């Protein structure tokens, strides 16, 4: 028979936490997640760890003496520079070398990093990120699991929580590459109206309170939101809205998937220099960063997705999921049944970077602050040029984004919107400029309760300001010119 873990091995921290909080989280899970068993080989492996001196001839792991990498050195910016990002970009700054070793002392030995591990990721790295979480969000009672980035984490959450036929809630303009990923799983999306400030809580309430299970199927139990630099609209939810949304989630028993890759790219922060000097960058950032859903999560209904993609690099393929310990356990089981734990080099790098021989957490926050300044500079340049070259014509307008990389430009026709926007997009292309039309991100409403079709409201472009200054200037000049050609 296939080996099934005994009852005792299932008594984990997850169960203890469960009893303590008197909440049964299993009802949120998909049928698949409910029936998934832990990896039986790992159960035996764990049992073998118990008695010292035990010889394990059970597992097929290559010995570390056969790993052909004894040392990895990463040449990174020195964090001692006053403005590390500027120094780095101009090539004038000092460099640091961060090293990982197999046979010498370091924060996370390559012996460990290059071995098989549990899906959640190595403890050292999880602990470092849990510490960061504590200092920024002070979450009530949560567990950290590593991911391969937010696309990986999010799509795993879809499998964890969604059954075929389920309806999930999302912002009416959203990161459609991800919402599309849920469709083959049989999940349908219910869009929530947005305004300049993001998703409108009263519309969320309206959808849930008027939901007719007889006609529409099971009431939605998951909300997918991008609260900072919402993709594509660029808005950031206010504290008040977040509290309202959390309350609604509490009332209607909704799990919140907080997808937050732009969280650390915030502008106009007004950070206190004296706080930095006295308490360090982390504390200073924590005081001005938005309040996450995680930070107010007393029900354990938030699964927060953080990523290194925008604050280190996309190819890191590393992030972390923070959730209640029950969900974390189930997520780890799914990871153990699929992609497995993240790569050793990425974990070793993060451990060294955040460790005492690297930048440390405060140094990492200093890098991030420096990044924020750089992105803010580009944002300001973008908005300046936009005002001069585009807004003056009266054919387009845009709010100043408080975070992230996106500007949501209102433009174009208000009738025949979808078709004319398509024409405008192609015209821009022919004039040498690419911007994303809103239709790419639009989620059509199938409930029929929204009042207007989203196609009448797709008169927007999503633009980014991550390119060079030249790109921004030339791009917006082209945009302004093309608008005039189109509308006149």
């Amino acid at each position, binding site marked *: 028979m296939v080996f099934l873990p005994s009852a005792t091995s299932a008594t984990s921290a997850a169960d203890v936490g469960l009893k303590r909080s008197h909440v049964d989280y299993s009802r949120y899970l998909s049928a698949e997640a409910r029936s998934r068993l832990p990896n*039986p*080989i790992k159960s035996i492996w764990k049992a073998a760890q118990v008695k010292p001196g035990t010889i394990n*001839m059970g597992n097929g792991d290559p010995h570390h003496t056969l790993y*052909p990498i004894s040392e*990895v050195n990463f040449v990174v910016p020195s964090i001692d520079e006053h403005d590390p*990002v500027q120094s780095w970009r101009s090539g004038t700054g000092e460099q640091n070398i961060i090293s990982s070793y197999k046979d010498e002392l370091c924060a996370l030995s390559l012996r460990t990093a290059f071995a098989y591990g549990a899906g959640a990721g190595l403890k050292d790295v999880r602990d470092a990120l849990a510490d960061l979480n504590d200092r920024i969000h002070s979450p009530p009672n949560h567990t950290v699991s590593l991911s391969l980035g937010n696309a990986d984490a999010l799509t795993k959450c879809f499998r964890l929580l969604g059954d075929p036929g389920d309806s999930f809630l999302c912002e009416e303009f959203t990161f459609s590459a991800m919402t599309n990923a849920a469709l083959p799983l049989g999940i349908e999306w219910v869009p929530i109206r947005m305004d300049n400030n993001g998703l409108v809580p009263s519309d969320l309430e309206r959808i849930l309170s008027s939901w007719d299970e007889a006609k529409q199927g099971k009431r939605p139990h998951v909300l997918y939101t991008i609260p900072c630099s919402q993709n594509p609209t660029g808005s950031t939810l206010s504290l008040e809205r977040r509290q309202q949304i959390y309350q609604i989630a509490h009332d209607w028993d909704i799990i919140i998937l907080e997808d937050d890759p732009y969280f650390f790219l915030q502008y106009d922060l007004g950070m206190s220099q004296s706080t930095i000097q006295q308490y360090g960058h982390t504390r200073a950032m924590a005081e001005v960063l938005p309040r996450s859903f995680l930070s107010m999560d007393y029900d354990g209904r938030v699964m927060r997705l953080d990523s290194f993609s925008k604050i280190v690099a996309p190819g890191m393929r590393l992030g972390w999921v923070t959730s209640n310990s029950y969900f974390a356990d189930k997520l780890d089981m799914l990871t153990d049944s699929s*992609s497995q734990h993240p*790569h050793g080099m990425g974990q070793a790098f993060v451990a060294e970077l955040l460790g005492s021989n690297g930048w440390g957490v405060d140094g990492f926050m200093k890098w991030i602050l420096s990044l924020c300044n750089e992105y803010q500079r580009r944002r300001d340049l973008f908005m300046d040029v936009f005002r001069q070259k585009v807004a003056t014509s009266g054919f387009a307008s845009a709010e100043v984004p408080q975070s992230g990389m996106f500007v949501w430009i209102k433009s174009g026709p208000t009738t025949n919107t979808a078709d004319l926007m398509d024409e405008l997009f192609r015209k821009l292309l022919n004039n040498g*400029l690419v911007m994303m039309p809103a239709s790419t991100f639009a989620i059509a409403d199938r409930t029929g309760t929204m009042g207007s079709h989203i196609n009448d409201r797709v008169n927007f472009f999503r633009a*980014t300001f991550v390119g060079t200054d030249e790109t921004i200037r030339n791009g917006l000049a082209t945009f302004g010119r093309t608008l005039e050609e189109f509308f006149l």
Partner: protein
Amino acid sequence: METPQIDNNATSNNRVIDLSHHLSDEARIRVANPLKDIMRVISECPVTDLITMANGDPHHSLYPFQQIMYEVPSIQDPSDPVTSWNNSGRTQIFHSYRDQECALPIRNAFQYSRAAGLVPCKDALTNFTNLIFAPPNHHVMLTFGNSDGLTKVFRIFGQKGDHFLTDEFSYPGITNCPLPYGVKWVGIKMDSGGIIPEELEKVLIRWDEAKLGRRPRLLYLVPVGQNPTGSTLSVDRRKKIYAIAQIWDLIIVEDDPYYFLRYNVPQTNCASADPDEFIENFRSTLIPTFLSMDVDGRVLRLDTFSKVLAPGMRLGWITSNKLFHLKLGEYTDSSTQPPHAFGQMFVTEMLSEHGWKIDGFCRWLRSLCLDYQNRLDFLLDVFQREVEPTGYAKRMFVWIEVFFEKHPRFVRERCSGGSPVVARTNTECLLKELIERLMSIHGVVFMPASTFAIPENALWVESDGHVPLSDRTRFLRATFAGTEDIIEKGMIRLGKGLREFFQE
């Protein structure tokens, strides 16, 4: 939804076989990235110097990496790099640069990529694959290792109610994976040479679709160093299995992490310094893969760096026909995304002109194989000395067969009739007891065969003369990945433990 406009499986002799009916509903419904259409329109735009304000990609000037250096064994010594490495031999450095030339620069490696992975890495592995495996007409896609690759493959072919075929003793870390979404396994009888082709055929012929649902259409195999039995499929068996797959329209999933660690391989004069000569010799020691004989495009082959570099590398690749390659790419874009920059950079540099190159990597592989061979030989020596004399066990590779019928408490029921799959002996109980005693009293851990046994269903076995799998679950799996000291101690403890168990 229209099917993709590609020449699906134009084979080398221009037979086009449409295998799209094998896809799961999920895979069929999955659409390519919605941004893909826009990307296509953009790429078809004739304007040069296009200004893009479309993507939220951090600029490479903001990546905090200027250089990455990896210290690795020097492959200068052509004969035995692994032994040199363990004896403080010479080392060399692979470099990844942001601003200088290298095989996969940092500024490209850390960008968002799609589907199959970064082109330089994909190309390097495609070259390797073509050189070593010579697939007829296939494409390479990067994965995070074989667990990642396999579970993606299962999702694109399997759905609720389906059955997959595999060895009757199999690695549950993988076979458990599709169970939660309703896929079941059919275990095929094995002997010391692995899965028995005739038994596979019998199951397919006997399959009653009315009772069991759709006939199984996917065969999952670990053809070299099968886990747990350690067996390797002969060339003759591979050809027979492929022929069966053609007749019964099976997809073959070739999971081959130990391919380069095959044992008792005749070592020709393999230490030639000349790269081409070395590769020729090296190739001649390799057993033909299912991939290399795949004229239909029905094989998906999974290779990984886990056992030949390190498990934590989390990098591998899948070689398959174009349709499956596209579908896997779509699924990757809808889930994990392609693998991490670190791994792709390392492997690309390793295979490049400035690294080990393909022949250097093959030298490492050969040297590794010899090292494992030495450890295995040592284990077998000690086994012969400490365990065989007890008379209670015999090794079949390191799938150790225990003669439970010699135990004073062995029970065999004399009954006839009833289900052919229900146990008639207490083999499994005795096995469990032995494992526990070896662990808690003697301090040595083995995996019991029961961990690997695929549950049987009376409907797909022969009713006459079938010995239930439960009565044949009489093996311990041992590995020899440890040091000689560990191996010796382990075998001594096993010998002692067996004596005490049987002489109670």
